[in-house]
């Protein structure tokens, strides 16, 4: 299973002279396995670049098929879709998996980006076939040889994290999530707290994350804030690298990939975040990396 990063930046895409090593495009991750239709997680500005590489193959002949796992629909995760070349070729087929929203379903949300006031190409001029599937947190489903399970994360609105397995390899992607101990952000969470009680709900939520990450080869995790930056912003729906490390350790993850770098952070800040996290992980047998645009990580499928 090959995991490729096309956008690693959170909040908004940003072009700066001092962030070209890690990259300034907003979130997009591609997962490939031999003989399988590729999976794409999120359509931030990174998906434009992914799309141009896909047009070298069957997607340029209208014979491509891919499945899109939607984490959530904040701008930084969807603004690249209108610039994703393969959507414009009849015959290509895309199936979106999302949690839906109380306010609007995914097709309406995507269509909203193509309103005439805001974008020159109407949504119905995207010639590819698009299928929309709604999934529930906790639900497990298969796409070819991939087994996928989703969990709700602690972020405003409905945000899903996913575990994707292929043969013996497993990757978990939590793009945007905050410590549940300080604040409950997700849709439906305050109701659940009222019903179960805060301590029980927090424990229940945390167990769910740990269970989903258990033994994963790689956890791609929100690391937006530095440890001192999160103070006063616990309700923004993001984590620090140490939050990600703590979850990795508890769940026995092999490789932590720091992700969703803050737009204010230049390459040197991400370097320092990585060095600090590696130091904190010293001696526990956990590999730590920071996601870079263009980075591809192969997860062995036959090791166990």
């Amino acid at each position, binding site marked *: 299973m090959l995991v490729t990063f096309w956008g690693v930046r959170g909040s*908004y*895409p940003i072009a700066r002279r001092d962030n070209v090593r890690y*990259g300034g495009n907003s979130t997009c991750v591609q997962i490939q396995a031999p003989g399988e239709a590729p999976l794409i997680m999120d359509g931030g*500005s990174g998906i434009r670049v992914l799309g141009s590489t896909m047009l070298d193959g069957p997607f340029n002949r209208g014979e491509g098929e891919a499945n899109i796992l939607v984490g959530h629909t904040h701008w930084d995760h969807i603004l690249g879709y209108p610039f994703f070349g393969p959507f414009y070729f009849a015959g290509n087929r895309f199936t979106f998996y999302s949690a839906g929203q109380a306010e609007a379903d995914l097709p309406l949300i995507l269509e909203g980006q193509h309103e*005439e006031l805001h974008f020159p190409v109407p949504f119905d001029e995207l010639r590819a076939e698009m299928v929309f599937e709604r999934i529930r947190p906790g639900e497990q489903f298969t796409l070819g040889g991939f087994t996928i399970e989703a969990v709700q994360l602690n972020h405003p609105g409905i945000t899903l994290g996913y575990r994707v397995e292929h043969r013996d390899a497993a990757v978990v992607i939590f793009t945007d999530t905050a410590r549940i101990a300080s604040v409950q952000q997700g849709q439906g969470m305050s109701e659940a707290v009222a019903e179960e009680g805060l301590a029980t709900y927090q424990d229940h939520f945390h167990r769910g994350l740990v269970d989903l990450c258990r033994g994963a080869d790689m956890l791609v995790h929100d690391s937006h804030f530095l440890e001192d930056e999160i103070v006063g912003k616990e309700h923004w729906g993001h984590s620090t690298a140490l939050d990600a490390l703590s979850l990795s350790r508890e769940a026995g993850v092999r490789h932590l990939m720091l992700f969703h770098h803050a737009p204010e952070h230049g390459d040197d800040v991400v370097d320092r975040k990585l060095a600090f996290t590696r130091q904190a992980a010293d001696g526990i047998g956990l590999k730590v990396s920071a996601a870079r645009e263009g980075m591809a990580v192969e997860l062995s499928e036959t090791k166990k």
Partner: protein
Amino acid sequence: MKIRFWGVRGSVSAPGPQTIRYGGNTPCVEVEGEGGETFVIDAGYGVVGLGQRLMEQGNGTTVHLLLTHLHWDHIQGLPFFAPIYVPGSQVIIYSVSVKTAQAAMDRLFTSVYSPIMGVENLGATVAYEEVTGVFRLGGVTIEPVILDHGVPTFGFGIQDGSKMVFHATDHEGGDRHCDSRLVAAARGADLLIHDAQFTREEYRRYRGWGHSHTDAALQNALDAGSRRLALFHYDPTHTDADVDGQLEMAREQVRDTSLEVLAAQEGLELEF
């Protein structure tokens, strides 16, 4: 008069090593008049950097924001424009229509797209002005001109005493009627900032997309008798080397004229 380019890229941000010199953030231009009055044209992601500078200057600012039109790449930076969260600050949006500008703001901040969960959660006061003709900001006179871009889109002629800048993006040059309006209003401009999304060769495939090729920008600058032309709104697929090529070809073509051509660059400041 001073012009500062905060974002010069068209359509969608294109960060990376290939765009580092000209810049990869979507459009935003700051104009400062002789009397110190400052205003902003468009709020693509380039506006984020401007917002950070305004925050360093202290709170309680009033920002005059002129929107050419409401395509995402010209407004998408507003949710990340720091002064919009500061109580006591004011953002005044000048656009084609109050109703559509308000609708655009609602969409930018609505909960399905934004963690801010609604325009009512902004700290600053947002006011809307409908631009129906020539108006003034301090000592600066602004003349709106409708460009050729599918949706109603303003070019802005900005006059301060004897100095004049004309801002013309997004615009598909080539339609004589529409170009003549632009040329008349931009007559004698010290600087014409003009859409140059495509090369002439590329334009053949993108006719009708609402953007100009380099030669169309040159033609309008020559017809208007502008002193300088700044190429602007580069295609996201264009690398720095591509823009260098556009600039070089443009300069070659006007070698025998007095028109000076430059390529807008993030961070560039021009003074007249």
